[in-house]
């Protein structure tokens, strides 16, 4: 952290309160629909400083407690107030290896910003926007500097999966002086950051830059390496790795179990997004095909459903429906994403549940039969249970359906690792604080443990596991 001069404005409560929350400039909906460019365009330094001045620099900052990786939020914001943008980014990176990613895709409204003291008095500081600003500034300036790495400890750690949990753990472990090899099954590292989250929400160049930073720190990444197949967890442990961190994330998509789900033109959101994002089907230079249909129904109400639907709009689909069985207030997607989707013309079919996919004689989707729902008593999740309205069936005229109703845990490691305990659903059982699994030397974290969650929760798990792995390898009695 840089020694900072006093910053009168930031501590002037009255002045701070008078500044409204600064909105980040966004591309116009009609314009942005034509391409995959990012929708919010980022703060200018002036906007960032104005917003940063709203921070009250609390002595006991609640925002830090709200952050799964406990970023020193007042400190990085203070740097922005002082105009030390690069210092701000460095400060962020002490706690978070992927600030440009988190600044974009973290649900700040449910975390740091939710508990920000200003939330109680009005509107919180735009912590996510500021995080993004600082990280982007540093990257665009090309002034990235590396922290000092301690002398090699001689311990080797394998990280399985290069999504948010794996990359975070890798970054932490390499900064502790361990040798880290990350194994990725796909041809590109990044996990959900590259195959799932679309370009217009998280530009892939940014993911690449953050991964490059980790490589510069010394993290080795092996792509095309599906652990469980090319090598098992046991083989990694017996071939020179002192510990393994399993962060293989979400796996096979869930389907509803209704008739017609295997018709041509029914996608899982995972497949649709992978074709467009990872395989770049939106770019005519790339070879991977994707169906370009006229009317698409996206089933589900989460962020993945929004991503798939907004992607479909950009692929030239005339009508895109969000079909969700509860009402708007129960939708798990971020409010911003729902709002963006609405601006772009998504049609929301709420309190509606599909009951059958209709097909033609050649096996193609020609409609989606749905039934209207109403909300009954609260269920185990605390949300009101949707119940079908008898006799309200109708047919939605679509020629493609994308199922975005969740995923099951990635199957390869649980299938191939004897002694690794999993839940009935297939999630690896791991200690919440340490990531320690039922198997000696094997730690796990992220979606493979918790089920589908957020990028930052996975990063938090990666960070905690790195601490535990560090202790584990140092205390381990080496056999050889």
């Amino acid at each position, binding site marked *: 952290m840089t020694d900072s001069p006093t910053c009168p404005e930031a501590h002037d409560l009255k002045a701070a309160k008078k500044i409204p929350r600064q909105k980040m400039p966004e591309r116009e909906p009609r314009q942005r629909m034509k391409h995959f460019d990012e929708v919010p365009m980022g703060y200018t330094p002036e906007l960032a400083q104005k917003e940063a001045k709203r921070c009250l620099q609390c002595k006991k900052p609640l925002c830090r407690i709200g952050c799964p990786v406990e970023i020193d939020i007042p400190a990085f914001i203070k740097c922005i107030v002082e105009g030390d943008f690069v210092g701000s980014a460095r400060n962020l990176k002490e706690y978070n290896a992927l600030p440009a990613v988190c600044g974009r895709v973290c649900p700040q409204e449910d975390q740091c910003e939710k508990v920000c003291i200003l939330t109680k008095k009005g509107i919180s500081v735009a912590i996510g926007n500021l995080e993004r600003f600082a990280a982007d500034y540093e990257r665009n300036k090309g002034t990235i500097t590396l922290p000092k790495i301690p002398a090699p400890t001689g311990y080797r750690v394998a990280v399985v999966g290069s999504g948010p949990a794996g990359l975070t753990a890798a970054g932490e472990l390499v900064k502790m002086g361990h040798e880290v090899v990350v194994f990725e*099954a*796909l*041809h590109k590292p990044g996990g959900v950051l590259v*195959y799932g989250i679309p370009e217009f929400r998280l530009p892939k160049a940014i993911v690449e830059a953050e991964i490059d930073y980790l490589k510069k720190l010394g993290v080795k990444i092996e*792509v*095309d*390496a*599906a652990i469980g*197949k*090319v*090598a098992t967890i046991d083989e990694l442990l017996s071939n020179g790795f002192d510990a393994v961190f399993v962060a293989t994330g*979400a*796996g*096979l*998509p869930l*389907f509803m179990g209704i008739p017609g*789900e*295997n*018709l*041509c*033109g029914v996608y*899982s959101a*995972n*497949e649709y997004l*992978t*074709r467009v994002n990872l*395989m*770049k089907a939106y*770019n005519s*230079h*790339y*070879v*991977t*095909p994707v*169906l370009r249909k006229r009317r698409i129904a996206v089933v589900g109400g989460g962020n993945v459903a929004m991503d798939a639907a907004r992607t479909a709009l950009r692929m030239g689909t005339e009508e895109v429906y969000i079909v969700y069985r509860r009402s708007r207030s129960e939708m798990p997607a971020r409010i911003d994403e729902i709002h963006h989707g609405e601006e772009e013309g998504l049609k929301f079919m709420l309190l509606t549940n599909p009951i059958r996919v209709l097909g033609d004689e*050649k*096996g193609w989707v020609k409609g989606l039969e749905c039934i209207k729902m109403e909300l009954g008593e609260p269920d185990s999740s605390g949300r009101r249970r949707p119940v079908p309205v008898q006799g309200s069936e109708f047919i939605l005229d679509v020629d493609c359906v994308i199922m975005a109703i969740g995923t099951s845990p*990635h*199957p*390869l490691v649980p*299938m191939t690792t004897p002694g690794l305990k999993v839940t009935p659903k297939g999630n690896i059982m791991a200690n919440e604080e340490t990531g320690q699994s039922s198997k000696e030397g094997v730690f796990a974290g992220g979606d493979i443990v918790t089920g589908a969650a957020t990028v930052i929760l996975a990063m938090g798990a990666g960070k905690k596991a790195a601490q535990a792995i560090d202790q584990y390898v140092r205390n381990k009695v080496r056999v050889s």
Partner: protein
Amino acid sequence: MFKVLAKERLAENIYRTVIEAPKIARKRKAGQFVMLRVDEPGERIPLTISDADPEAGTITIVFQTVGYTTKLLGTLEAGDYVLDVAGPLGHPTHVEKFGTVVSIGGGLGIALGRSITEALYKAGNHVIAIISARNKSLLILEEEMKKICSELMVATDDGSYGFHGFPTQVLQQLIDSGRKIDLVVAVGPVPLMAAVSKLTKPYGIKTIVSLNPIMVDATGMCGACRVTVGGVTRFGCVEGPEFDGHQVDYDELMKRLKTYAEQEKEMDARFVAARSREIQEVKR
């Protein structure tokens, strides 16, 4: 990057390519496949590992140049590189001593089922291999197959070589002759696998087929490879590629395999155009 060490034309539009991939070569077992991407804008395609040499660190793939990616792959010569090869993927074949096994390979399927036939033969089974093609010139690997089975039978659709007719007719003759068959394995075009399964079902002969659904990641993430087996949706990449032939919904599989037929035509035209441009340039 994975180096191409050898390439050989086996028949019209069918090539055998040997790729340096030591880690995969060491681990692969019969029946497994790799995902391959030729170059950066390329798609990921699943290809069965036909053979491997763990000492030399090589895997062998055999493919038919039917679309953009396979045609591009067909242009690679020894010394060229493939950008990505991931594997070995899918469950290996369940190998044990069953007794008498009939292994049926149709067209390219001869090469795809080669490793399965070999493994079952080495496990001590009496393996009767029936290999078939549309005509003699398209029949591949006859000599090699002789070495990894107990009896080899050949059929061609047009009668230009071996039995005149379909491999199912040869199988029917075997069954009619009263030979006890403990297992049938069929690899080849979907209609062939469907026909073999239909034939063996009334006799209660256990039949295994190796399916080739469309895949994208092929590691258990995207769900493109859904096949209906016994009325249940199964994922070909991590639960297959081999399934009980009597339970597979072949009609659905055929339809799903045609999902991108139109786009594939477009890509094919693009490939031909690119190649003819290259040829023009070379001429100049």
